[in-house]
C-alpha cells in the first residue's frame, strides 16, 4: 500500500524525484571518491557534458509533449556541423554567418521532417528514421571525410571559457532557461500539451495542429543545427560521425524527465534534470572505472526504468 503510494508519487512528481536522484548521486560519489569527484574541474566536465544533450532535449521535449519525436537529430547535428565547417573553410564566411548557416541548415532539415509528418502524414517514427539515414548519407556525399582544422576564428563559439566552464554549457543554459519560460508561459508553446493530450480536441479548440507541429519540428532542427555548429567549433573540426546515437541519449533523458510516448505531459526543467542525471551517471561510471560497454547497458536500463514509470503512472491514474 505504502510502497505503491511512494512509486505513484515518484511517477507523478518526476522533477522532485530527479532532484532527489541527482543529489543522491552527487553525495554518494563525493563520499566514495572524495579526491576525484567533488572538484571544480570535474564539475565543469559534467556540466559541459550536458551541453549537447541539453540543447537537443529542449526541442525533443516540446515534440514529445505534442506526441511526436525526432530520431534524425544525430544526422541533422552532423550535417549542420559540416555545413558550418564548409562555409568557414571553403566559402570564406566570417565565423558568425558560418555559425548561423549551420543552425539554419538544421532548421531546413527539420522542416523536411515537419513536412513529411504533417503534410504527407507519415508516422514520426518512420519519417525521421528514414531522414536519419538520408541525412547521414547526404552529409557524407557533401564531405566524405569531414572538415578538419576550421580555423579562421571559428573556435570562439565552443572554446571560450566563462567561470571555468566552456561556452557550449552557457549556450545550453540560456536555451534551457528560454525554453522553460516559453513552454510554461506562452500560448504558442502551451499548444503542445493540447495537441499531445488530444489532437482532435485541440483542433476543435481552434489550434492549428499541423502548422504548430511543423514549427516544432523546425525548432528541433534549429536546435540540432546549433548543437552541430557548436560541436564543430569546440573540436575545431566538423566530424562526419558526430552525434551518432545521440537520439537515444536525448530520448532517454526526456522520457526520464517526465515525457510520455503518448504525449500531453512533460516539462523543460524535467528534461534538464534528466539530462543532468544521465551526465552524472556517465561521469560516475567513468570515475569508478566501469567498462564503457557497461555504460551503454546502463543507458538502456535507465530508459526501460523511465518508460516503466510512465506506464505505471498511467495505469494508476486510470484506476
Amino acid at each position: 500500500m505504502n510502497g505503491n503510494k511512494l512509486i505513484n508519487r515518484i511517477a507523478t512528481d518526476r522533477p522532485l524525484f530527479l532532484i532527489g536522484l541527482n543529489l543522491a548521486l552527487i553525495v554518494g560519489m563525493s563520499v566514495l571518491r572524495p579526491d576525484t569527484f567533488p572538484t571544480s574541474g570535474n564539475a565543469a566536465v559534467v556540466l559541459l557534458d550536458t551541453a549537447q544533450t541539453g540543447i537537443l532535449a529542449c526541442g525533443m521535449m516540446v515534440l514529445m509533449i505534442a506526441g511526436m519525436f525526432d530520431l534524425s537529430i544525430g544526422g541533422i547535428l552532423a550535417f549542420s556541423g559540416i555545413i558550418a565547417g564548409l562555409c568557414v573553410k571553403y566559402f570564406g564566411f566570417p565565423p558568425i554567418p558560418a555559425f548561423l548557416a549551420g543552425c539554419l541548415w538544421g532548421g531546413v532539415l527539420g522542416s523536411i521532417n515537419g513536412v513529411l509528418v504533417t503534410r504527407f502524414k507519415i508516422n514520426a517514427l518512420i519519417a525521421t528514421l528514414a531522414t536519419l539515414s538520408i541525412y547521414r548519407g547526404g552529409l557524407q556525399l557533401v564531405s566524405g571525410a569531414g572538415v578538419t582544422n576550421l580555423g579562421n576564428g571559428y573556435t570562439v563559439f565552443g572554446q571560450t571559457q566563462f567561470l571555468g566552464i566552456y561556452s557550449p554549457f552557457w549556450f545550453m543554459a540560456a536555451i534551457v532557461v528560454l525554453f522553460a519560460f516559453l513552454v510554461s508561459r506562452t500560448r504558442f508553446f502551451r499548444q503542445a500539451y493540447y495537441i499531445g493530450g488530444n489532437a482532435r480536441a485541440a483542433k476543435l479548440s481552434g489550434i492549428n495542429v499541423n502548422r504548430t507541429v511543423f514549427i516544432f519540428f523546425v525548432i528541433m532542427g534549429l536546435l540540432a543545427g546549433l548543437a552541430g555548429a557548436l560541436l564543430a567549433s569546440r573540436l575545431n573540426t566538423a566530424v562526419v560521425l558526430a552525434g551518432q546515437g545521440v537520439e537515444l541519449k536525448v530520448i532517454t533523458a526526456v522520457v526520464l524527465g517526465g515525457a510520455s510516448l503518448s504525449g500531453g505531459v512533460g516539462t523543460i526543467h524535467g528534461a534538464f534534470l534528466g539530462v543532468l542525471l544521465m551526465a552524472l551517471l556517465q561521469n560516475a561510471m567513468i570515475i569508478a572505472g566501469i567498462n564503457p560497454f557497461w555504460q551503454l547497458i546502463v543507458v538502456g536500463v535507465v530508459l526501460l526504468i523511465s518508460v516503466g514509470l510512465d506506464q505505471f503512472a498511467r495505469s494508476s491514474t486510470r484506476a
Partner: protein
Amino acid sequence: MLRLSIRNVVKTFPGVRAVDDVSLEVEPGQVHALIGENGAGKSTLMHLVAGVYRPDSGEIALDGQNMIGLNEKATADAGVAMVFQERSLVGALSVAENIYAGRQPGNRCGVINVRQMQEGARAILSELEVDLDPRTTVALLSPGQQQMVEIAKGLSHELKLIILDEPTSSLTISEARHLFRVIRKLANKGVSIVYVSHRMAEIFEISDKVTVLKDGRVTGVRDTNRTNHGELISLMVGRELSFEPDKRRSDPSAKVALRLDKLQADRVRDASFSLRYGEIVCLAGLLGAGRTETCEAIFGVRPITGGVLEIDGRPFRPEGPADSMDAGISMLPEDRKDGGLFMDFSVQANVVAANLPAFTKNGLLSEAAMKVKASEYVQALRVATPDLQREVRALSGGNQQKVLLAKWLCRNPRILIVDEPTRGVDVGSKADIYRILRDLAGQGMALLVVSSDLPEVLALAHRIVVMCEGRVAGEIEASGATEISILELASSKASEPEKAA
C-alpha cells in the same frame, strides 16, 4: 430572431448521405433536444454547426449571421460551444488551462497571464456552481467534474449556443441533476441549448422542443409537452416497436445454475444471489456499483477473494476464463470493440474465435466447418452483412453486437453473461437482441444480464438484482418492479451516512 437556423442542409460522405435536406430552428433560451438512432446524422449535423465539416449545400445562420465557411475557431468565437461525447480535456493541465484551451489570456507576445486566467476560470466555475480550484490538475477529477469543466470551456467566451452530445452518459444521478440545473440556468439567461441524447427520460425532463432524425432526415419536430415516448420512438424507427415484458416465465422448480453467497473480489464486497436455468436475471445499479466486476469474478477474470460461488450446486473457483468456459459459462464483455470483437477480422473469423478447437481436425482448421457454423448464426440472429468475409468494423453497432453474441453462443454455454447487451445499438437490432435472449432463456439457458438502461432491465428481466457499492442491495420480481423502485434500491446505501472506514 432565431438563434440558430439550419435550412435545407445536405452533407454527403463517400457512399453515404449523412445529412439529407435537414432544417432546424432554435430560439434564444430554448432547450432543443435532437434525437435519433445511431447513424441518424445527429453528430454530423452538429459538427456542421460547429464548423468541423462544411455542408455541400444549404444555409446555417447564428442570429441571422451566415456560419457556413467558418472553421471551428471562428464558430467558437461567434459563440458556439460544443461539448463532445468523447472527452476533450488534457489530463496533465490545470482546470483553468483546460477551460481556456488555446485562448489563454495574455499579452501581445503570447505570454500567458496566469492570474487573469485563474480568476476568469474561478468566475466561470462559480457561475456553474462547481466547487473546484482552477489550479487542480484535470486528471484528478471525477468524470462528472470533468464534464463540468467541458461546459465551463464553452462559457469561457460569450456563449450563444451550446451543443451537448450525450452529456450524461458517464455521470452519476446527482451529477446529472446538477447538469440539468445548469442547463436551465443558462437557458434562462438566453443561451440556446441543443441537447443530443437518446435517453428519453432526460428529454422529457429538460427539453422544450424535440427534433427527431432518421437516416439523415428530419422525421418530426414536436413540442416536448405535447408528445410522448411512444410517438418519439415511432418517429425514430419509423414503426411502432413494443418492448412488452415477456410472458414466458421460468419454472420456479428449475435447477439452480449459479449461486453466489457473500462473494468478494476487488470492488465486489458482498454479492449473494442465485440464477436458475431458463431464467433471465438482470443486475441493475448505478455506474460503479460492482455489477461488471461481479460478472468478471464469475467468469474468472477477476480473482475471487472470499465467499462462495457454486455452479450446479458444486463449489467453483475459476483460476481464469478458461476454467469458466469449460464449466459452460460464456460472457459478452461491456465494450465489444475493446474486449469482444476482432474489428478488422471477418464475421466468420469472429464467430468461431472463441471455439477454435471445435473446428480443428488433426491440428488444421476446417474452413468448411467454420463457414457452415458462421452462416448458421448469421441466419439465426439475423445479422445484416453482405457476406461472411466482411470485416466486422464495417457493420453497424447492432450487427456487431449480434456477431459478438454468436461468438459466445458458438460454445453452447449453459450460463450466458451479457454485459450491456444493447449499448450503442439501434432500436431495430435492440428488438432482435431482446427476442434472441428471451428465446435462449426459453430453451433453458441461464442468463445473467448487466444493464444500465432501466427500461431494458424491465423489459428483459424475470428477476432484478440491484447492486450498490459492491453489495447486493435487494432483489425485485420483475412483475412488481418500476424504474423508481430500482433506483431507490440502487442509491439506498449512498444516502446513508455509514462510511466508517
